[in-house]
């Protein structure tokens, strides 16, 4: 782990779940501008790989473990000397409608996507209050805005996460901490982590496309995060931003574009 204290003009950032997919894209994007980034993840091989590629600092931590949360925030502060931007990105997916969702899968999804976000938020709020440009940005999902039957527990966890964002926006706003959510649509490479440990194939053929006729990228999501974390987003608080190519804009949005891979 590199140990240096960030220069005062840089955005001191922590990204949870930054070792792959959208999280890695966020680490890369923030690292490409004036930000000092610490990111967490469970897989140290992937973490060290992203560290090497981006120059950000990897701290191994599992958001489901309250002790990991505390120690990783402590480690981040040692590296950064404070905190301006917390990005709650760690999440897991489980492919099942609610009626077919086991207790184990339900618990794993809620522990990671909701409780993990709550734990990082309360661990970081005291640090964020000391910042002049403080923000929390949660990576939620378009499934929070409009649930998807095939990913039931995930949809529930993200709806609850959006509400966590809005309650935090109200309670932390007076201290100047802005709290917002980015709600991506189908993104590739997206959620690398499934509850069962299955990794995504990256094959998007067969996905229904939004009106913009492509799947989203990690960069699309990272750009929205960069906006919320920057002074450009200074008056955004409790905002739930869809980054989904228009998929949740209409009851029939998916009917206007062909499936990915269609000629």
């Amino acid at each position: 782990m590199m140990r240096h204290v960030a220069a005062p003009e840089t955005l001191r950032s922590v990204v949870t779940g930054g070792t792959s997919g959208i999280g890695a894209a966020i680490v890369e994007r923030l690292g490409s501008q004036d930000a000092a980034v610490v990111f967490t993840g469970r897989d140290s091989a992937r973490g060290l790989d992203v560290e090497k590629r981006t120059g950000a600092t990897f701290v191994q931590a599992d958001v489901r473990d309250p002790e990991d949360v505390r120690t990783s925030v402590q480690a981040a502060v040692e590296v950064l000397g404070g905190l301006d931007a917390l990005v709650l990105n760690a999440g897991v997916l489980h492919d099942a409608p609610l009626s077919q969702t086991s207790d184990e899968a339900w618990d794993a999804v809620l522990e990671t996507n909701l409780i993990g976000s709550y734990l990082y938020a309360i661990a970081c709020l005291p640090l964020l209050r000391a910042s002049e440009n403080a923000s929390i940005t949660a990576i939620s999902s378009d499934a929070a805005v409009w649930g998807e039957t095939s990913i039931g527990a995930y949809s529930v966890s993200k709806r609850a996460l959006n509400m966590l964002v809005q309650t935090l926006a109200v309670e932390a706003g007076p201290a100047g901490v802005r709290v917002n959510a980015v709600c991506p649509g189908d993104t590739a490479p997206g959620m690398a982590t499934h509850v069962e440990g299955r990794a995504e194939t990256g094959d998007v053929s067969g996905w229904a496309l939004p009106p913009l006729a492509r799947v989203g990228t990690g960069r699309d999501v990272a750009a929205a995060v960069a906006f919320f974390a920057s002074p450009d987003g200074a008056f955004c608080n409790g905002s739930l931003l869809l980054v989904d190519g228009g998929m949740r804009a209409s009851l029939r949005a998916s009917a206007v574009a062909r499936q990915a891979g269609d000629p």
Partner: protein
Amino acid sequence: MTSTYGLEGRVALVTGGTSGIGRACVVRLREEGMRVAFTGRSRERGETVTAEAGADFIECDHRDREASDRAVERALDLADGRLDALVANAGILFQGSIEATPEDVFRELLEVNLTALFRVSRRCFGHMRDNGGGSMIHIASDAGIRAVHEIAAYSVTKAGVIAVSELFGAEGAPYGIRSNAVCPGDIVPGVQATPAGHEEHAEDPAGWVLPPSGRFGTGEDVAGLVAWLASDESAHMTGATLRIDGGTGAAMGVLTRG
């Protein structure tokens, strides 16, 4: 008394039926001629409601997953395997911001308000699917639609409840299973249960803001909607989220002091 909505002889399970909205639902569904089983933590309160309404009390704390499972099986046994309506109402409240909500309390609210409701619904969903359908009614809250930061963790769990209800609605429609979320505004008497080790929620509506209708809601207000949702009168309604709040949710800024 004849049923308003043709519910005579049908069977309902109400979770958290010993007080507040749940109790009002038990009473109303009994008045409609339904056979009703209800759960609750307090045997004393449960027996009072049983004496009053003639419903079957099942002592159960939904924090305990095995006890919660047993309670649903018991309800199914009591009615010889028939279940037409589930009213998933059991819930607890904690007053405080997210930061003021200790981790164990956050987890407990999630367990009771969201996970237990999901688990009871999942079991009833399977039963209804195998038996030609049914109506699931989830008691959420207007705090699940828009944040109420003074009861932040409650707000978070109730947002999840609405999502659970919508998703079961979408999934259950082909099987004749309907699932709707009811979102009461301020109700007197309202949620009385609190996390373990915390004092009963001291309610003082005197300091609350009245809805535009000029009064707070009652358990009976909610129970009327629940009875209608349990009946065939609402046959084409599923996956819906219904506010019952005297206009509060529609009226940004139109508020009067109680």
